[in-house]
């Protein structure tokens, strides 16, 4: 394994040393060239991988830097001529050496010949000789970038620093790559920083608090053939603790307002934060981390996240907040993380209250074949409020060969809503009309608790005792408890051309429910290892068992109020008490074969194959007051799985990975599909049970491919996956429409369902001096083919979905950025001769932003939307244009004033297309539209609490 680390590292260094220099700053007079050799002349050898940095003597400004090559040589191009320059050589264990020079404007080149560097007396090994830290250096197997060597605005954050580093790319989604290799974890002082979302560390920690950035391969996972690359941010000694936060208020036109606040504290052991938001501009979050991301400081760059979500329906008011805290009990002072030293307790509490007021209209076309088409319109209003509070606690402790993990969380929620709906349907053949007016007042409350505990152990070789110890085992237990009520009052008023069909209901539903689920999973890997001493097994065998027991209890009290009645009369057909229990037991035995082949310095390939024989026993028992729902079924299935994967590392060239997986799943019919209670108040749709419904059996095949180029500054990486599935005895809808457009829906087993799915993405970045281009492309395709039944006729149905997008991003320093992107998604459904529907959405966007350090920033973004549905005649076009202009002030730019103009063109619309086998619906709703807002924000920040 060690061999590989060194090799990968060697390539990393070659990529950095090579013949290229990474210019820090392009200078208008930067046309000179400098070469030379660095030697330890006392010991008579050249210095490889030493750092050479050129500074301007005046002002000490870093001009350029690189590592010496295998011959101890350095070669700089594009260095300013005619001014005093200084080259400083640094290497671990050596006293920095420097030499001043001027490049003659005539010759434009200078050969500095041999520069000598002297070793630090080893008795003073830990003493740092006062000198400017080199921008970049190799420290054993770690590549280090020293923050102080990079001159940035005083308010710059880590993200701004990373953009300056050679070979490092920070992608729009927060992913970091170093020479194309993805950074698997970003750590601060060897630990996750607030849950491991890269952006929180990148956009809040000031560059000035950072001592150095380390990049290295994590060797802890000795079994991993492709050891992950990690990045660790080492903070300066006096910046190991601190706090940062934000308080902001905004007032806007149309009675819009927004307020947020956050305060975050970190120290080597403890991380804690408290965060909150209150607004009516569609800025909401479901957890503390998302809210934290919204409140990031960012640095000299561009603040264009955290905008209103213009796609949300209705008017929304969001109030939310919470806190997180974590404490690390390990006593490891090493800033480089040791995987097995984890001893971490984390807690989170989050509370939110979201209210929504939506007015929606929809239009649906239903094809009934010989019975004509239905044209349905619906107008609805809904007012709702959701309140929830939840909390969680996690504890993880890892030892070198064992780990335990546990978590507990609870959730409490209450919802209230008032909905009205006015529906009309016309049959174009019979001209029969129906009309329904429905009103629902509903409230629900629910509490749930979940817990999880697991123990993992590894069999390992004890070098001292010279034997294998322990078991390869994972054990885990999880439970989930739920308890709640759902109450509603529904008024339904149905009228039709045929007045005999008119119906009126005033019905009350009172439901209490509770459930508990217990899951126990056990895995014993490589059973044979207990019986053999040293030889490698040809085939290894694993045992797994998964047991899941679920109990669900529901108590329904349904009553009807007659037109002139005073109290609700119990509805005998719908009032019910039911007790539903399932036991899902899945034992399996799997056989695994691993094979690898390597040629030193050439390649490393490994194959692994696994076949698993898995059985499933599924027991379903329902006992209900409505005795026709009673059910006691036991199913036995054989659900095998198989997988194959191939890994190919061609040293210094590329790495690719292929995998092929096959698995089988059984979909069991539910009580609501087998024997539902039929509520006649659902006037348009009646569900009829099918007690003969059989489980559907699904075969799934998935292929995955991943590629990345090693080395090179502008590496490419990409991946693709294709999956195919075949569902035998597919459960599909059988619908029977009457002339009034009402339908009876039954789930039946009908033929096979075949589907295929493809997804692919490709990333490439170019870094040219201070400019960076990122290109990301994504594409997707899905196709399915199945049978449906409408009015007793069977139709072959095909659904095709296509999606494609690309995003182009350009950054210059951290000051200018521009982006363009295009997203397309489309869907086509074809139901035999009966119906055909299509829709697509196409969005093109452009964005542009710039910022002057410490002062003004500006950004703007335009989205052109084009939507087409076969349910409506014309394309719908609308454009959303947003812009912000802001000013940061105070010494540390802690204060911000910002004017935002949103949906400047006043065109935002909500369009939602939905198609199923024989109908297509297009709906529109009220949405957030044009507003202007003035925001004031203050970012309290202090890094290093103890002076």
């Amino acid at each position, binding site marked *: 394994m*060690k*061999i590989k680390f*060194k*090799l990968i590292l*060697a390539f990393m260094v*070659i990529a950095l040393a090579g*013949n290229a220099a990474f210019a820090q700053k392009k200078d208008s007079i930067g046309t000179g060239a400098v070469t030379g050799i660095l030697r*330890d002349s*006392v*010991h*008579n*050898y*050249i210095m*490889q991988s030493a750092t050479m940095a050129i500074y301007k003597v005046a002002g000490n400004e870093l001009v350029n830097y690189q590592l010496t*090559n*295998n*011959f*101890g*040589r350095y070669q700089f191009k594009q260095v300013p001529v005619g001014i005093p320059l200084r080259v400083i050589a640094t290497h671990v*264990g050596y006293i920095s050496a420097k030499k001043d020079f001027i490049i003659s404007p005539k010759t434009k080149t200078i050969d500095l010949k041999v520069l000598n560097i002297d*070793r630090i007396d*080893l008795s003073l*090994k830990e003493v740092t000789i006062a000198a400017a830290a080199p921008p970049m250096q190799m420290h*054993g*197997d770690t590549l280090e970038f020293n923050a102080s060597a990079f001159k940035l605005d005083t308010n710059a954050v880590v993200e701004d620093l990373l953009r300056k580093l050679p070979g490092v790319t920070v992608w729009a989604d927060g992913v970091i790559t170093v020479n194309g290799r993805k950074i698997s974890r970003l750590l601060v002082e060897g630990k996750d920083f607030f849950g491991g979302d890269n952006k929180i560390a990148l956009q809040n920690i000031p560059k000035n608090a950072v001592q150095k950035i380390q990049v290295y391969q994590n060797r802890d996972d000795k079994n991993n053939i492709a050891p992950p690359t990690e990045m660790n941010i080492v903070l300066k000694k006096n910046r190991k603790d601190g706090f940062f936060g934000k308080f902001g208020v905004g007032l806007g036109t149309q009675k819009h307002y927004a307020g947020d606040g956050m305060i975050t504290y970190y120290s080597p052991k403890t991380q804690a934060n408290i965060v909150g938001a209150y607004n009516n501009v569609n800025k909401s979050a479901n957890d503390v981390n998302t809210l934290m991301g919204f409140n990031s400081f960012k640095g000299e760059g561009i603040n264009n996240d955290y905008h209103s979500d213009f796609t949300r329906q209705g008017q929304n008011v969001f109030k939310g907040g919470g806190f997180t805290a974590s404490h690390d009990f390990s006593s490891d002072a090493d800033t480089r993380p040791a995987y097995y030293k984890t001893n971490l307790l984390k807690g989170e509490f989050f509370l939110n209250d979201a209210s929504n007021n939506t007015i929606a209209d929809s239009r649906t076309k239903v094809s009934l074949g010989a019975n004509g088409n239905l044209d349905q319109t619906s107008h609805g209003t809904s007012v709702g409020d959701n309140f929830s509070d939840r909390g969680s606690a996690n504890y993880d402790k890892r030892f070198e060969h064992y780990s335990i993990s546990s978590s507990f969380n609870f959730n409490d929620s209450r919802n209230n809503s008032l909905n009205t709906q006015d529906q009309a349907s016309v049959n174009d053949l019979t001209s029969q009309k129906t009309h329904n007016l429905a009103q629902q007042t509903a409230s629900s409350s629910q509490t749930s608790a979940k817990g999880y505990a697991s123990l993992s152990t590894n069999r390992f070789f*004890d*070098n*001292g*005792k*010279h034997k294998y110890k322990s078991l390869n085992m994972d054990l885990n237990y999880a439970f989930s408890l739920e308890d709640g009520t759902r109450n509603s009052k529904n008024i339904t008023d149905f009228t039709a051309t045929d007045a005999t069909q008119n119906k009126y209901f005033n019905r009350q539903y009172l439901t209490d429910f509770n459930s508990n689920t217990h899951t126990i999973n056990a895995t014993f890997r490589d059973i044979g290892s207990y019986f053999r001493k040293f030889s490698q097994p040809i085939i290894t065998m694993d045992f797994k068992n998964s047991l899941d027991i679920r109990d669900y209890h529901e108590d329904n009290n349904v009553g009807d109020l007659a037109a002139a009645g005073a109290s609700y009369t119990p509805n005998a057909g719908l009032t019910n008490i039911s007790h539903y229990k399932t036991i899902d037991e899945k034992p399996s035995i799997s056989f695994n074969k691993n094979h690898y*082949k*390597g*040629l*030193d*310095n*050439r*390649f490393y390939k490994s194959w692994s194959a696994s076949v698993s024989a898995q059985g499933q026993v599924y027991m379903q028992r329902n006992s209900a007051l409505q005795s026709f729902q009673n059910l006691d079924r036991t199913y036995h299935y054989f659900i095998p799985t198989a997988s194959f994967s191939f890994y190919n590392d061609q*040293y*210094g060239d590329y790495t690719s990975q292929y995998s092929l997986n096959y698995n089988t799943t059984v979909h069991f019919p539910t009580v609501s599909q087998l024997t539902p209670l039929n509520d006649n108040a659902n006037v348009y749709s009646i569900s009829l049970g099918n007690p003969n419904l059989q489980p559907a059996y699904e075969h799934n095949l998935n292929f995955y491919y991943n590629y990345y180029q090693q080395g090179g500054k502008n590496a490419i990486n990409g991946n693709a996956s294709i999956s195919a599935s075949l569902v035998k005895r597919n459960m599909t809808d059988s619908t029977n429409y009457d002339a009034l457009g009402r339908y009876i829906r039954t789930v039946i087993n009908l033929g096979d369902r075949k589907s295929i799915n493809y997804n692919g993405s490709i990333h490439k970045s170019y870094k040219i001096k201070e400019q960076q281009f990122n290109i990301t492309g994504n594409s997707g395709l899905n196709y399915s083919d199945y049978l449906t039944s409408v009015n007793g006729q069977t139709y072959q149905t095909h659904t095709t979905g296509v999606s494609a997008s690309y995003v182009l991003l350009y950054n210059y320093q951290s000051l200018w950025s521009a982006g363009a992107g295009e997203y397309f998604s489309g869907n086509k459904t074809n139901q035999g001769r009966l119906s055909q529907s299509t829709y697509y959405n196409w969005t093109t966007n452009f964005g542009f932003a710039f910022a002057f350090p410490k002062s003004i920033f500006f950004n703007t973004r335009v989205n052109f939307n084009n939507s087409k549905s076969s349910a409506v005649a014309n394309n719908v076009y609308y454009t959303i244009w947003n812009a912000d202009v802001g000013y940061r002030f105070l010494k540390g730019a802690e204060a911000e004033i910002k004017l935002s103009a949103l949906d400047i063109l006043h065109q935002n619309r909500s369009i939602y297309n939905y198609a199923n086998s024989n109908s297509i619906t297009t709906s529109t709703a009220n949405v957030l539209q044009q507003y202007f807002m003035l925001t004031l924000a203050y970012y309290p920040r202090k890094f290093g609490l103890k002076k």
Partner: protein
Amino acid sequence: MLIITATSVLAQKVIKVDSSHVMTLRVDPSNASGGNVSDVFAEVNYIPLETTDESLFGSIGKLEVTDDYFIILDHNTHCILIFTKTGKFHAKIKSTEGKNMIYDFAINKFTKQITFSRDGYKNMTTCDYDGKVIKTTKLGGETAKDEINSDNLIYFAPDKAIGTYYYNEMDSTDKYYKTFSKSLILYADNKHKVYAHGLPFKKAESKLGNEILYAGNSTQNITNAGIDTVFFYSKAYNYSIFTITPNTIKYAYQLIFPLYASLPIDFSVNPIYKEKRIEYIEKHRDAIFSLTNVFQSGDNLFFKASIYGTTKEDNLIYNLKSGNLIAYKHIQPDEKSFYLPISEDNWNFAGMLTNTGGYLYTAVSSLATFTAYEQNKDNKDVRNLHYNPVLTQYFKKGNRKDNPCIIQLKLKNDL
């Protein structure tokens, strides 16, 4: 039967260790110097090994040089490969599919034979230099009291070889106990019968066998000193070097390293390190834990002093006359080596592989030579370099995935 065993036991000669002339060498790797290839070596020859589908292998785990051939063990393909002295592929001996691999081999230069086992030491196979099987000899097995079932033997006469044994805790009642079980050096005949042994280990060292960490590819604790009848043996964890001849064992050198680079003096015997030695080495990354691959060429002693961390000062040349110390990896390629590397900066690089006929032998991968070749093209100082015909051909026809290059080196005597 008993009588026969008894006689054979009695017949085993015990060779006493002569400790009367121990030379102490003080070596500070951090103060080793470098230099150019032409400063250190009188001769440097690159011998690219022919690459064909049949001859493709990983790296050289063991190299023996005979009058006509290079005989190579590759741990990637588990084969013994035979190349001519010009690097042309000659023959290959494969492991048996599905059986135990070939882990080692011995050559008998006197009879021109290669001996190895590919069935877990049940049988020893003897081949000629063309890879043709001459005979298969069944060994007495692990319980044969006076037999060594190893192929790590070095022949110093047509029917006599020297071998090593490992630290162990066996006592005479143990099923696998052998008459020479408490000695580290043994002398055997060509039927693997041990006729003499020496260099006993202490009881406190008996557990070391399970606690020795090997320093990468081609680690050899017994090596040919350059003369057919003199060998070097280095003891684990105490920096002592012995010279072994057909009739003597001499405690020849004791190396002393600076404190930062040393294991505790009692590391191999103090029970506080019991079962913790490998962990200790992993934590003390600057401590030299293994002293191997000892060769002598004239007045120069070449050895590999490995540490767990990263260093360029592991392969060292110590001049016994001047006391000068040179770090092999610091020697800078120059025109003499066509600006091609003579070492590699990765764990795979074995250091010196063997010492025969006045030459030291090492090897570098084609990845290293081709990388240097590309760099040379871009380097204006060496752009007009004229490679010799062998290398010209190699760079013209080959690529970075070719077999390694053997490097034949002749050290200058006055360093």
